[in-house]
């Protein structure tokens, strides 16, 4: 299989895919400095004037605190419910076990518009006022999955023997959780929370159906993307969002760990276990 020509082909293909992934992002960043309102390529003159225009934009000022509040609250809900669900599904075998794990991934397996219209329909019918609360409910529902996936993946990789050893050494359930289980899954929990935050901060498909007239950052972009006059400001907000998002995501990536990080963690755990 891995003949030299095949390897070269694969490398070329790999480079093409990477370029395809990054050129659009690069172009958005460049256009944020575009002096002209038009979108002609190549860009003629560069400017930073849109950054202050965006900073002083009233809608942006309204949307940003909303987005931060919603993402924080959705993350808190997701963190609690997602971790609990991961523990239950990992630890216990019970009637409907598979149904539960299927149920939890449903919000990401079903098309987004289905979740969106289902929630919209219920909110409408029960006459709950559309606003920050309804957005949080929607976001928490699919953020639970992200935390759940991260935590259960780590639990599956954690050797059950360390929990048994802890019990044998006389620790009660709480102590075992506090000193053995939690340290083993801590980074997965944090990574899940960061991803949930990013997911909520990013979300538009469901938000459009649950927000009413409440403005969030994605809703601001969605509303203004079609107004050519406002496109430079949208562009600056877009770049700001890219930069803001990359920080939590980068940390989450480091924490959840690539394959090597995981292997290293497993080795460390194995080495530490006898000393418990």
């Amino acid at each position: 299989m891995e003949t030299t020509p095949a390897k070269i082909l694969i490398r070329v293909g790999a480079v093409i895919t990477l370029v395809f992934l990054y050129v659009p992002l690069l172009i958005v960043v460049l256009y944020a400095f575009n002096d002209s309102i038009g979108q002609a390529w190549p860009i003629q003159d560069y400017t930073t004037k849109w950054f202050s225009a965006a900073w002083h934009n009233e809608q942006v000022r309204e949307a940003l605190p909303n987005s931060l509040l919603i993402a924080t609250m959705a993350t808190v809900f997701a963190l609690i419910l997602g971790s609990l669900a991961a523990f239950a599904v990992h630890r216990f075998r019970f009637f409907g076990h598979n149904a539960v794990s299927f149920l939890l991934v449903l919000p990401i397996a079903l098309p987004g518009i289905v979740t969106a219209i289902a929630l919209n329909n219920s909110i409408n019918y029960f006459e709950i006022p559309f606003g920050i609360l309804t957005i949080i409910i929607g976001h928490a529902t699919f953020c639970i999955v992200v935390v759940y996936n991260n935590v259960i993946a780590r639990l599956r990789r954690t050797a059950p023997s360390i929990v048994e050893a802890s019990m044998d050494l006389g620790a009660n359930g709480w102590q075992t959780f506090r000193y053995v289980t939690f340290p083993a899954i801590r980074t997965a929990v944090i990574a899940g929370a960061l991803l949930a935050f990013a997911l909520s901060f990013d979300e538009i498909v469901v938000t459009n159906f649950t927000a009413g007239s409440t403005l969030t950052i994605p809703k601001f972009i969605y509303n203004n993307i079609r107004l050519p006059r406002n496109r430079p400001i949208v562009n600056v907000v877009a770049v700001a969002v890219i930069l803001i998002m990359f920080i939590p995501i980068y940390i989450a990536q480091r924490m959840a760990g690539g394959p090597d990080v995981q292997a290293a963690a497993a080795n460390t755990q194995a080495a530490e276990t006898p000393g418990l």
Partner: protein
Amino acid sequence: MAAIAQERPNDDGRTRASAFLYRHPRGKLALTLGAPITWFLVVYIGSLLFLLATAFWSLDVLTSQVVPGFSLDNFQTLWENDVYRTITIRTVGIAAAVTITDIVLSFPLAYYAARLASSRARNAVLVAVVLPLWANYLVRIFAWKIMLTPNGFVNWLAELTGLGSLQLGRSNWSVWLTFVYLWLPFTLLPIYAALERMPDSLLEASSDLGARGWTTFRNVMFPLILPGIAAGSIFAFSLTLGDYIAPELVGNTQFIGNVIYDNVGVAGNIPLAAAFALVPIAIMAVYLLGAKRLGAFEAL
């Protein structure tokens, strides 16, 4: 661990509580699973079932009021009206095209990361693949919108490379390109995971037995990574089926999602929207069953 030793003797309330829970695993199960399941059943499954019910309701044409009841009128409208059928076929067709394109584009990079790269390069590639996913979804559509303008980057590149004037503008081609871009990381990661799990020994055995590259790929590698491909395809397919934003911003035709969005908003015919929302659910149910048979859920 000194901390554990200090907290002895273990006859405080916490110990008794945890001992009780140890003896009564059902109590522990209820404590851990109760809250998340209640949330899901009430908020999510409740809403989905209610959506299902609403699909059988109808809209009073005169008062624009939703009338509860049981009628199959919405489904009849969807079935008999050519417009809805065309939109469904278009949505499924583009979703399939996007899924296949993403799989093809994913394979070389996934293969490189899983089997050719050094461990440092591999981690760098994985981070590089996932990062764009978190550059706001709308931002990524916006990127394609500005690249696809008449004198934008795509046409500039097409002329530069001698393809001539492409002028994709607002078209299904643009929607296809944008979707391929949006969901690529979702297909790539499961394919990568499948390739990484594939034991070298099987490939070596195949080549020892005289199989050439293509034969090994077709008969050994492909069956082994098929669950990963199926897993990745779920995301690309489902996300395309349920999207209304990319078609609205870079396309000029309607997708299932657009009809639903318009009926919830402007037209105010929620029962019809609810009925149409069942179409992607039904399609995904069939798709997930197929993916499950290919072992996709073990590869997630």
